[in-house]
């Protein structure tokens, strides 16, 4: 079935099965491998992408549900000023070690700060609660989000 959407500001039309996981569309059809696969069951958030600015787990997202929507992966987000602020904050605070969770963490951070530019620690932890990290112990990530909030994301 033909499915059209906008991904990273580009219009795309693909002939794929409607039930294909959006994650496989992104990684295997579009070769955007910044989006990761951890659990494949909705629990880790490594596969997070933004759809109409909301983070979702692409491993459970049927491709057809993305039709005519606006998808942003880490590759597209990298081109923005907001990305620079958040990525610098993660580097500054040691919020990324192996990096596997980082694309998801960064996209969730962006969607949080866009809605709530000055989140409390509790709000940060709540927003990141679906994104698991095996390396940092989370505190460094929470600190990075706070730094990014202070530097401000000009939106």
């Amino acid at each position: 079935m033909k499915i059209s959407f906008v991904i990273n500001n580009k219009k795309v039309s693909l002939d794929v099965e409607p039930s294909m996981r959006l994650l496989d569309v992104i990684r295997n059809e579009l070769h955007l491998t910044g989006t990761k696969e951890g659990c494949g069951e909705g629990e880790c958030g490594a596969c997070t992408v933004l759809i109409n600015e909301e983070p979702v787990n692409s491993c459970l997202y049927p491709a057809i549900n993305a039709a005519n929507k606006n998808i942003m992966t880490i590759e597209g987000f990298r081109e923005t000023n907001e990305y620079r602020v958040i990525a610098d904050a993660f580097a500054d605070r040691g919020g990324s070690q192996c990096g596997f969770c980082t694309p998801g963490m960064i996209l969730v951070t962006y969607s949080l700060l866009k809605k709530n530019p000055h989140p409390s620690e509790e709000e940060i932890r709540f927003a990141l609660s679906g994104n698991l990290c095996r390396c940092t112990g989370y505190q460094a990530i929470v600190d990075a989000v706070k730094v990014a909030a202070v530097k401000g994301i000009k939106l």
Partner: protein
Amino acid sequence: MIQHFVPTTLKEALKILDERDCYIMAGGTDLMVQKHRGSGLLPNFDKDVLYVMNIKELDYIKTDAEGNLRIGAMNRYCELMNSSLVPDIFKTVFKEIASPNIRNMATLVGNIANASPAGDSLLPLNLFNARVVLSSVKGNREVLVEDFIQGVRKIDRQKNELITEVIIPNCDLNFYYRKVGSRKAESITKVSLMGGYKIEGGKIKDLRIVFGSISVKVVRNHFIEEKYQGKSVNELRARIDDIINEYDHEIKPITDQRSTMEYRKKVAKNLLRDFLKHVK
């Protein structure tokens, strides 16, 4: 070969369901896990699939003339949490379901149709006497959520029916809710309890108690609830041990990978005691 149907109108969807037996896909957060085969592989569907998230008619959160809240089959937790029409106690429950990412995908109707004993939205839906509307080419029928769910993944739905909406009557009670899981986010419920009560002139006007994850479906015993209506708060408090005993035969949890039968039973009773102490 299986076929995929992406109707954009309800009429079209009901016609398809009348002609063939389909899986119904909403947000996919249950179905995509259940049919998952592995990285790079298509989900394992052995019959046709009908997708509901393009039927714009089923996208609404509104109140009707009688003051009932009506929620369409497309509406996701994230939308319900942001709506001023949705009672706070529902939002409290939704906040503890899965994770923010999942709540941006998952629908309330999907949680009902999935009929898991651990489905968290089923507690407030039961307590509020909520109903689902099932539509087919023949027309609509309404069923109480309490009766709609018959057991683990067993629901009162014919193959040609689609759940189109949930109706939640207005309900002015004091609420109590506890969900016990392994951690704060993304934890499937081990035991949960929701209580609701209303007191007028020192007497119990309304008392409702529902348990999650302690039986094949949400447990609610109308007989016990009614027995205590009209009694004084003091009498209720004096009879807490009796009430816990009355629920004993209803609390039939299982042992699984998440918890043991003994633990669940004990926690369920402790939650009931805690709730009853809150009634004042």
